[in-house]
Structure formats: structure tokens, C-alpha cells
């Protein structure tokens, strides 16, 4: 541990020879071990969280590409994104769950919260594009529950790096297809049915690993909602882009969906401090989509569809949004 070395120098100039027999020193040796263990664990989780953030961001970018695209391309991208997200669950989150096993998860929440939020943003975005509905907390939790592996925690090294992510498309897609089917079936079911399907899908893995217990990553509801707040930013981007792609109904749908989220957040007031901070961004995103819908409504009747798309293309390319439309000299 490199950190041990540099910290130990604090005030070395004083010649206090450490008397190992002193009860004080003995006690502090114990505290030292306890502190180091906890700090190391914390660091490891922070690292995992960072990886989760990066990979979730990639999945989001991937999904943005398919928004409003034609159906064959979309399907491919959705598959790819799904396997990417599964990869994150099965490697990164599994490690996090292993680190958190037998611990108070809330003790390390600050370490894994950034990654978790980004992941929730990605998975909820995926879920929305697939089903057109909001993912539920229990669905998120279900994905982050794993059978306890029989092997003790392996140090998270380069086991599942970029190379593994590429390979995954072959090995994971088989599994993914199956789970996707399951997800579809269960999307409308209530949580009780969800639970049974969870245990069903896990049984196969359980026998292979030999564990008999479950480990999991706690998803505090507040973290979940913060992820959902971030989702609206992605929805806004999707709405604008789908106009570009000539899909004029999509923005209206998204607008409705975002409004539900916005209204709900408004009603929470300032119960959670972080939530309030995200509110202004949410409001902005919603405003942009609403303006886009307005433009579609007003201009939609007078401009041919493909030309309307052109307007939006040039607008989003310039980073401009709908307010500037009126004086863009389109008469």
C-alpha cells in the first residue's frame, strides 16, 4: 500500500521512538489496521464506480445514436446497448456487491453513488426506448442482485476490460436475449411476480457457482430518483434528434413523459437537497422539448416534413433552439 508510506512521515522530525510494548501503541496498531482496511475498500469501490460511470456513458451515447433511426439499425443498437449494460452489471456491480457484502452499504454510498446514478440513467434510458415506460426501482434492484460466488473476492484487476466487452456480444447476447424476453413478460407484472422471475433466472447461475446466498448493491430511492432526473437530459436530446430523423410524433410523446417526471419532482419540494439541484436542469430540458413541440405544431402545417427536419438539424448543429426560430427568416 503506497498510501501507508507517505502518510507515515507526518512529523517524523520528532524523535519519538515507537515503543511497541506500550498499551497505547498496541491499541493504535489495531485502529491502524481497521482504518486501512476501510480506506482500501472505499478506494476500490470508488474505482469500480468510475468504471461504471464510463461504461454507462458509453451505453448512453450508443443509445442516442439509435433514437429515431430506422428500425433495423435500432434493433442492432439496442442489442448492443443491452449487452453492454449486462456487462456492467455482471462485472462491475458484481464486484461492488462483493465489496459491500457483510457491510453497511450506506457506509460506502458516497463511493459508489456517482457510478450508480449514471448507471440508472443508462438503464432507465434503455428501458424507456424499449418499452416507452419508466423503469421501476424494484427492476433496477433486481438487476443488481447476484448469487454469492463460491470463490472469495478476487481483486478487481483487468479481468473484464475493453477486450471482454467486445467478446461479450457473442456470449452475453444469448443470455441477454433470454433475459430480455423475461423482462418483456414481466414489465407489466407486479413486483411479486418480478421476484419469482428473479429467482428463476438466477437459478441456473446459482448451481454453477455453488453459492446459496444472494449478494446485492443497495439502491437508495434517492439515488434512483437522481438517476431519473438525469434521464430527462437524455430524453431531451432524443426528442430533438428524432425530429431530425423525421419522426414527428416522438417529441410529443417524450414531452408528455418528461412532464410527468417534472411534475412529480416539483411535488417533492426540497426534501432531498440533491434533487432540488437537478430540478433547474430538468426544467430547462423540458422547456426545450416543449418549445420543439410548439414549433412542430405551428410550423408543421406549413412546411413539408423533410424541410422541417432540416430546420431542426441546422438548429441543433448551431446549438440553437426553438426561440431563435421566429427570426430565422423562414417565410
Amino acid at each position: 500500500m503506497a498510501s501507508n508510506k507517505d502518510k507515515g512521515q507526518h512529523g517524523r522530525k520528532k524523535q519519538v521512538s515507537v515503543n511497541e510494548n506500550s498499551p497505547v501503541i498496541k491499541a493504535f496498531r489495531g485502529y491502524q489496521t481497521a482504518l486501512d482496511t476501510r480506506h482500501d475498500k472505499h478506494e476500490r469501490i470508488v474505482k469500480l464506480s468510475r468504471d461504471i460511470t464510463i461504461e454507462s456513458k458509453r451505453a448512453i451515447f450508443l443509445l442516442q445514436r439509435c433514437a429515431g433511426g430506422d428500425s433495423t439499425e435500432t434493433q442492432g443498437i439496442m442489442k448492443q446497448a443491452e449487452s453492454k449494460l449486462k456487462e456492467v452489471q455482471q462485472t462491475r456491480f458484481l464486484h461492488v456487491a462483493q465489496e459491500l457484502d457483510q457491510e453497511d452499504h450506506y457506509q460506502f454510498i458516497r463511493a459508489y453513488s456517482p457510478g450508480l446514478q449514471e448507471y440508472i440513467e443508462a438503464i432507465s434510458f434503455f428501458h424507456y426506448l424499449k418499452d416507452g415506460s419508466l423503469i421501476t426501482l424494484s427492476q433496477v434492484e433486481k438487476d443488481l442482485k447476484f448469487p454469492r460466488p463460491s470463490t472469495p473476492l478476487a481483486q478487481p484487476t483487468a479481468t473484464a476490460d475493453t477486450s471482454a466487452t467486445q467478446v461479450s456480444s457473442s456470449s452475453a447476447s444469448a443470455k441477454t436475449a433470454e433475459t430480455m424476453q423475461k423482462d418483456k413478460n414481466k414489465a407489466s407484472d407486479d413486483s411479486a411476480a418480478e421476484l419469482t422471475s428473479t429467482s428463476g433466472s438466477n437459478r441456473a447461475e446459482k448451481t454453477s457457482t455453488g453459492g446459496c446466498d444472494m449478494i446485492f448493491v443497495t439502491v437508495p430511492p434517492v439515488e434512483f430518483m437522481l438517476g431519473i432526473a438525469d434521464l430527462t437530459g437524455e430524453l431531451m436530446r432524443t426528442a430533438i434528434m428524432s425530429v431530425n430523423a423525421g419522426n414527428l410524433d416522438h417529441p410529443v410523446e417524450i414531452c408528455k413523459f418528461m412532464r410527468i417526471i417534472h411534475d412529480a419532482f416539483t411535488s417533492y419540494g426540497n426534501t432531498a437537497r440533491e434533487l432540488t439541484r437537478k430540478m433547474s436542469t430538468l426544467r430547462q430540458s423540458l422547456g426545450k422539448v416543449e418549445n420543439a413541440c410548439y414549433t412542430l405544431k405551428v410550423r408543421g402545417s406549413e412546411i413539408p416534413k423533410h424541410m422541417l427536419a432540416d430546420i431542426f438539424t441546422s438548429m441543433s448543429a448551431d446549438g440553437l433552439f426553438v426561440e431563435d426560430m421566429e427570426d430565422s427568416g423562414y417565410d
Partner: protein
Amino acid sequence: MTTAAVFSDFQQYLDADHELKEEIRTVVREVEQTAREIQTIMQAIHQAAATEHVLSVCEKSEPQFAKAKEQFSELAKKIPDNQYYRFNDMWRFVIQRMAYLAALKVYLREDRLISQKETADMLGVKAGREDGFHLDLDDFLMGLLTMASELSRFAVNAVVSGDPGRPVRVSKFLSELDSGFRLLNLKNDMLRKRFDSLKYSVQKVEGVVYDLTIRSLVPAGGGDVPSKD
């Protein structure tokens, strides 16, 4: 599950969370009150450093410690399993203060450093996380650091109240505590900041000892722990 249900679930969660926090806050406030009472009692050590006086002050705090113990067990009941760290910011301050008071008391009585386990016992909480409502290591260490600064003050006042032997013993104790803390690999957090000021306490007491020594005011054997009667 509809989108609306997701949000109403969350609303329920927020409400329950809010309620629980209110309950916790009420109990924490009571513990804080007790801690203040003990603190007030303990302040009497600065008036006279004679061993009998100090011991009687410690004695006086006994009922309050018992009360704190009860209050902590009351608090412990409110916390759901494995969610100590979800709320611990709420009692962090008071448990640190109680740890400090417990450490001070044990030092004054027995001239030695309290252990984490002992502190937990005195507060009526568990020593380890696995066992439930416990004394966090950071909080315990913070308590020790607060005790150090209190002791440096005590050393100065002991001289005034006519016990020049006391600073010598306090100085020894603090320098041992200091070398203990140096073993820890602290992160850049509150504990680290607090620890950085430990050296000033040590220095201050060393200064007192120096002043006394050059004037030959330290009684022979003043640095020895007085034998208990």
C-alpha cells in the same frame, strides 16, 4: 407498475424517511442535553487539580453517564438494521462528544488511555459494526483528540491550582497519544485536520513542563502516577 406509481412510492419513502429522521432527531437532542450536563460537571476539574477533587468530579458524572447509556439504547432502537451509516451524521457530533467525555473520565481516574471497546461499553453501544448500533472508529478517535486539547488546558490550570506534578504526567500521556496517532494513515478528512492540531496541545503542555522545570517547581517524583488508596 405505472410511472405515477413509481413516483408515489418515492413520495411515501420520503415521508417515512422524514418521519424517522424526526424521531431520531428528538432522541439525539436528549443525548445532546445529557452530554452538555456531563461537560458542565467535568469542567470543575479546571478549578482544582487535586486528585481527590478530580475523582469526586468524575463520581458526580456517573448518573449522567447512566442516563446517556439509556438514551443511546433508545436511539439504537430507531435505526433499521444495517442502516447506521444512512443516518449517522445526525448523531456523529454527540457521540464524538460522549466519547471524549468517557475518555477524559477514564484518564482522570486511572491515568490511562481508554480503548474503543471500553468507550462503547460506557456509552451502552456496541463496539463493532456487525453487532448493531456502534461507536464508529472515526468518532472514537475524534473523541480522543478532543480530550487531548482539554487535557492541555487542564495541565495549565493544574499549575495554577497548585499541582505542578500534573503537567508532567499529562505531557507524558499526550506524547504517547501523539505517537499512537502517528501510526494511523489518515485521509484528508476531518480527523486529519483535528489530528493536525494535536501537536499544539502537546507543545503547550511541554511548554508548561519546561517552565516548571527550569524553575525547579516540579516536585520530586511529580511525574509518577500517584498510588491509589
